[in-house]
């Protein structure tokens, strides 16, 4: 009896010791590494964004670590799947800030999730680089909030500037009835006048609708010089097929939301001649050799393809650029978050996958109009316009 009791006590003490070790262990490891948090919609409706972003972030960290880390410290990434849900994004952001104690956060992939997370990172003074495109993320400028994705503003400006050179005066808009389509429509309506363009028709379609010929037929009555379709796969592919079916013969423009090989695969020969703005990544191989962004793009593409086989897209580039910015700014800061923030804000001329970043106290996106290039689908592949 006495013996059994002492065994129990010893066992209990051992267990308690184990628990203490287990609790201390992460803290002990954390001191040896720089921890960076990631919040991406790896699954769910926006997985096409979050999945390559997660892969790119991990890939960047591996690359830095293989080269010896930053000032001798290894990078450690902690990534959570937000499923594009703002509520989950906020709770994971708190987890990153308070329990994982990260130095900086990259993501979320979508604008609603980003807007929900911003108050949390502002409170904690954590440098935060969003991968979402929404304009309101960095307008107005918030001290700790940055973003790497091009936005609708630059995409619409690129399309309209090109249309102006083509003498297009009247456009019809066909936007998907979700946040992406809504925000694109706002910009398309707002910027039209500045380029001498009138919007003569506004239609919408549902994300999983099987047929859009009715919308296109109605639009034909308004006689637009061009149609702009704003959506993400598979809707625009069906629009392209329907336009071919109706023999519309009106130039079709798409958003940067379909600038991936998947669109060509889905739309087949119906996508011939379609024009869209794209990050340079889709046409990296076509850029002239002296182009300043080409080496960065080719390096990213080669690494991504070598590791994951396929699926390289501009979306992953947002997280890649975010990591690039953070690690460059992190050198020599010894993990001080305020210094890290200042160094990001003063960063100039960093050539990334999305474009050239020039941050300042009034500009926390940093991308200029060179972040998009107009491309055309020709013979089943991308071609530069002009």
């Amino acid at each position, binding site marked *: 009896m006495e013996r059994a009791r002492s065994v129990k006590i010893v066992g209990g003490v051992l267990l308690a010791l184990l628990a203490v070790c287990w609790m201390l262990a992460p803290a002990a490891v954390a001191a040896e590494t720089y921890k960076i948090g990631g919040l991406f919609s790896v699954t769910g409706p926006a997985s096409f964004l979050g999945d390559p972003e997660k892969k790119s972030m991990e890939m960047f960290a591996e690359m830095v670590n293989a080269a010896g880390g930053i000032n001798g410290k290894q990078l450690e990434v902690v990534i959570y799947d937000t499923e594009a849900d703002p509520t989950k994004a906020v709770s994971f952001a708190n987890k990153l800030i308070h329990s994982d104690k990260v130095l900086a956060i990259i993501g979320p992939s979508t604008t609603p999730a980003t807007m929900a997370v911003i108050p949390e990172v502002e409170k904690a003074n954590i440098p935060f680089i969003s991968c979402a495109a929404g304009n309101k993320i960095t307008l107005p400028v918030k001290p700790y909030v940055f973003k790497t994705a091009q936005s609708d503003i630059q995409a619409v400006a690129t399309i309209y500037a090109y249309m102006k050179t083509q003498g297009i005066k009247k456009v019809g808009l066909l936007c998907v009835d979700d946040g992406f389509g809504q925000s694109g429509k706002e910009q398309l309506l707002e910027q039209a006048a500045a380029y001498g363009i009138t919007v003569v028709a506004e239609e919408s379609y549902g994300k999983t609708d*099987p047929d859009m010929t009715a919308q296109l037929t109605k639009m034909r009555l308004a006689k637009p010089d061009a149609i702009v379709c704003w959506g993400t796969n598979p809707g625009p592919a069906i629009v392209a097929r329907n336009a071919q079916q109706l023999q519309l013969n009106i130039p079709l423009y798409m958003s940067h939301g379909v600038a991936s090989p998947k669109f060509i695969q889905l739309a087949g020969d119906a996508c011939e001649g379609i024009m869209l703005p794209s990050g340079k990544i889709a046409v990296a191989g076509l850029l002239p050799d002296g182009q300043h962004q080409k080496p960065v793009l080719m390096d990213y593409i080669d690494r991504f393809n070598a590791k994951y086989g396929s699926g390289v897209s501009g979306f992953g580039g947002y997280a890649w650029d975010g990591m690039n910015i953070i690690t460059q700014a992190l050198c020599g800061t010894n993990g001080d978050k305020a210094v890290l923030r200042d160094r990001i804000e003063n960063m100039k001329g960093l050539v990334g996958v999305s474009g050239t970043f020039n941050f300042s106290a009034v500009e926390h996106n940093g991308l200029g109009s060179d972040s998009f290039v107009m491309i055309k689908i020709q013979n089943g592949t991308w071609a530069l316009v002009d």
Partner: protein
Amino acid sequence: MQEFLQYLFSGVTNGAIYAVIALGFSTLYSATDLINFAQGEFVMLGALVLVTLWSQAHLPLWAAFPLTVLLVAAFGMVFERVAIRTVRKPSPILLVLITVGASIFLRGVAMLIWGKDAYSVPAFSKTQAIEIGGAYLLPQSLWILGIVVLLVVGLNLFYHRTLTGKAMQACAINKRAASLLGVGTQKIALLAWGLSAGLGAVAGVIIAPITMSSYDMGTMLGLKGFCAAMLGGLGNFWGAVVGGVLLGILEAMGVGYASSSLRDAIAFFLLLLILYARPTGILGKASTQRF
């Protein structure tokens, strides 16, 4: 006029898709009195299995089609055996909830197997869109309509002319009485699930060339198919066709003559009106006649 025709064709294209999905709902309802909310997921399975057989196993479409239908029908039977028959106290609401759960489960599994991307398969016939009075109709829409009509004729013959079909109807009307008269009710239920899952797969296969196939395509299509079945009269096969085509045309006319942002609202509002006037659906018999 040209516009009206085009809206009509657009409506018929969408409507034929809703109709073929509605048939799956009606088939199961005719035999088991159940509504299967995973029917849209059977459609999705049909489309994605076809994609795999066609693009991975390199089968020609004419061979992949029946194989897909058989595979999904077999899956429907397994589902009945595992998830429906094993319920100890099968109340209708419980079984319906099981199918709702199954739809979420199937979507998740499909996302793991086929990923989150959409896939496309070629149309059955390679010809261009057919021009009628300045409006264009895809040959695939005609394929869908033709197959729907064939299925309805076949199903009507099966349910009204064969002993098995009559036994199925008897099971729906009163399971216990049918069992007392020597009908193997368990076998009938198994057969009904196989049949309706197979019909879902047929729907998936024939609509895959028009819509794109992805793991999340089933939800909205299933819902619209259910509406079509309700509109035409649940359990009535011609009703499924009438309901589906009517719903599709209402949507297209809503886009054309009102606003595309209101298309679902207009279609569903008219649906409510029709169901208010005729609660049993356009071709449905009053339920008192069945029981």
